[in-house]
């Protein structure tokens, strides 16, 4: 019997996690220092990062390219509205609503995941549209007119802003940790195997459907959390906006520009997108088209995105790294 040593965390990886925890702490304390405007902007940034990380989890790590993640973004917000209408405290309803959207994802997964590639992508878009139409039938939503989460007006505006900010930060921290943990677990390895070759993955004992389902439901929950936090900061719920396909364009842009299949890429992509949004966000449909063109350009000419390309050029990897067998030849020793 021989034993081999492995390394799951590089030094730079540990340093990065430590630094991230520090940044998180500073961000958590920020409402005591920063202006309301800054807090609102950062809440939006958290939502973008969350969406990007979730889309990358799906497409980058499990090969599930969905153009319908707005389904869960919208359903989460809708369920939160419904729960508040039934008497639940708003901030609890935002969380429970997202959990509800995660549950909705389970039956959806059982048939959507039978489809492959482009068929899956289109099916997800159709599902998002169907859900939007179904939700519009609810009198509470008032069709295209939409509705508002008026219960939030009962909170002092500053408190409300800070609570939403903390909820966003907490959700982001939770989902970043969950994603990192998942990707480093055997489920993460299985997802990547499925992404690379589904038949080969099955041939080494991986239950393809079950692994895809875990990833799909987690990503749905994350997108739904983003949707409920968005609802809390925007107050209004418009089916056309909350179930809008623009969310998918945003996610695609952030992940493709930042770097598919890396942990860091989507975060960088989200920050770039956030800055662009600050400058060009009011330009409407041309802006959206421009985002799409840039995303396609990246997919064609820089498929590894900014972070992926940087990592290849420099060899610097902070968080994406996998399992290393240490000094494969020399560490072998008898036990």
């Amino acid at each position, binding site marked *: *019997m*021989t*034993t*081999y040593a*492995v390394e799951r965390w590089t030094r730079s990886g540990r340093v990065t996690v430590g630094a991230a925890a520090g940044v998180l702490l500073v961000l958590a304390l920020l409402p005591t220092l920063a202006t309301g405007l800054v807090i609102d902007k950062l809440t939006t940034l958290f939502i973008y990062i969350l969406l990007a990380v979730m889309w990358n989890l799906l497409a980058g790590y499990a090969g599930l390219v969905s153009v319908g993640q707005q389904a869960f973004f919208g359903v989460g917000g809708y369920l939160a509205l419904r729960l508040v209408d039934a008497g639940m405290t708003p901030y609890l309803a935002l969380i429970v609503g997202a959990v509800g959207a995660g549950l909705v994802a389970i039956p959806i997964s059982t048939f959507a995941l039978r489809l492959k590639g482009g068929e899956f992508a289109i099916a997800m878009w159709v599902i998002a549209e169907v859900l939007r139409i179904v939700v519009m039938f609810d009198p509470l939503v008032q069709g295209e007119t939409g509705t508002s989460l008026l219960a939030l007006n009962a909170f002092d505006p500053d408190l409300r802003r800070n609570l939403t900010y903390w909820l966003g930060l907490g959700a982001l921290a939770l989902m970043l940790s969950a994603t990192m943990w998942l990707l480093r677990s*055997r489920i993460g*390895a*299985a997802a*990547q*195997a499925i*992404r*690379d*070759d589904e*038949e*080969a*993955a*099955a*041939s*080494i*004992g*991986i*239950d*393809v459907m079950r692994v895809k389902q875990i990833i799909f439901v987690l990503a749905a929950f994350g997108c739904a959390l983003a949707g409920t936090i968005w609802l809390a900061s925007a107050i209004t719920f418009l089916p056309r906006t909350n179930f809008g396909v623009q969310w998918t364009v945003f996610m695609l842009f952030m992940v493709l520009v930042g770097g598919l*299949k890396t942990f860091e890429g989507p975060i960088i992509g989200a920050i770039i997108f956030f800055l662009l949004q600050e400058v060009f966000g009011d330009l409407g449909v041309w802006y959206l088209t421009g985002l799409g063109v840039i995303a396609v350009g990246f997919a064609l000419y820089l498929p590894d995105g900014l972070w992926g390309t940087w990592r290849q050029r420099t060899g610097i990897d902070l968080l994406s790294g*996998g*399992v*290393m*067998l240490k000094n*494969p*030849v020399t560490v*072998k020793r008898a036990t």
Partner: protein
Amino acid sequence: MSEEPAMVQPMLEGRGIDKSFGAFKVLKAVDLAVASGEAVGIVGPNGAGKTTLFGVLAGALLPTAGTVRFAGADLTGTGAAARCRSGIARTHQVPRPFLGMSVFENALTAAQFGAGLSGSAAEDCAAEALERTALLNHANRPAAALGLLDRKRLELARALATRPRVILLDEIGGGLTEAELGLLITLIGQLKADGLTIVWIEHILHALLKVIDRLVCMSAGAVIAEGGPDAVMADPEVRRAYLGGSL
């Protein structure tokens, strides 16, 4: 008609296997039984249906008719993943590595899922599989960086890391130099000595003959001869179908 001793209970058995792709009948009533610890070679011309038979045995393909039994249980309707976990491993004729992962991660994932191991047991199992297949030096390289020969080795390493009871090898020796082929034959011989049941599709007859107990020849979707290697190769039908008169 067979002078072979009857098997008490075959380890792996396909009985009456038909497989059609649309109107094209690729396998026609194929019977194959492999005893525990036995090494069976399969030869046959291109397109005979050898790889398709492996697909049916490993659960990647559902047969149009017939049954697959393994260690006494009917697995005909069971998927590839469950069959692997119960002990059937296969290598693919055209290697199918997980290109986004390292060589070690490829094997580790196989150990975690196929062998159901976790923690350091999985890591040791994966590293041992790489060591046996002479891939340990490449452990931390991306699988995408491997050439064809190393990708074939990785197929074998990954299959071994699932801790199989039966291994289905599909043209694992093709394209190797004589020296490399020698190492491969030694390795497969060791696996057999360890008690692994082996089914090996190979066009390189002299390599097969060093390891196998029994030879099966397929042609046009059917088994046309089986038994001792010399008897099979001397069979006139085999010479006609497989060797095309070239020998």
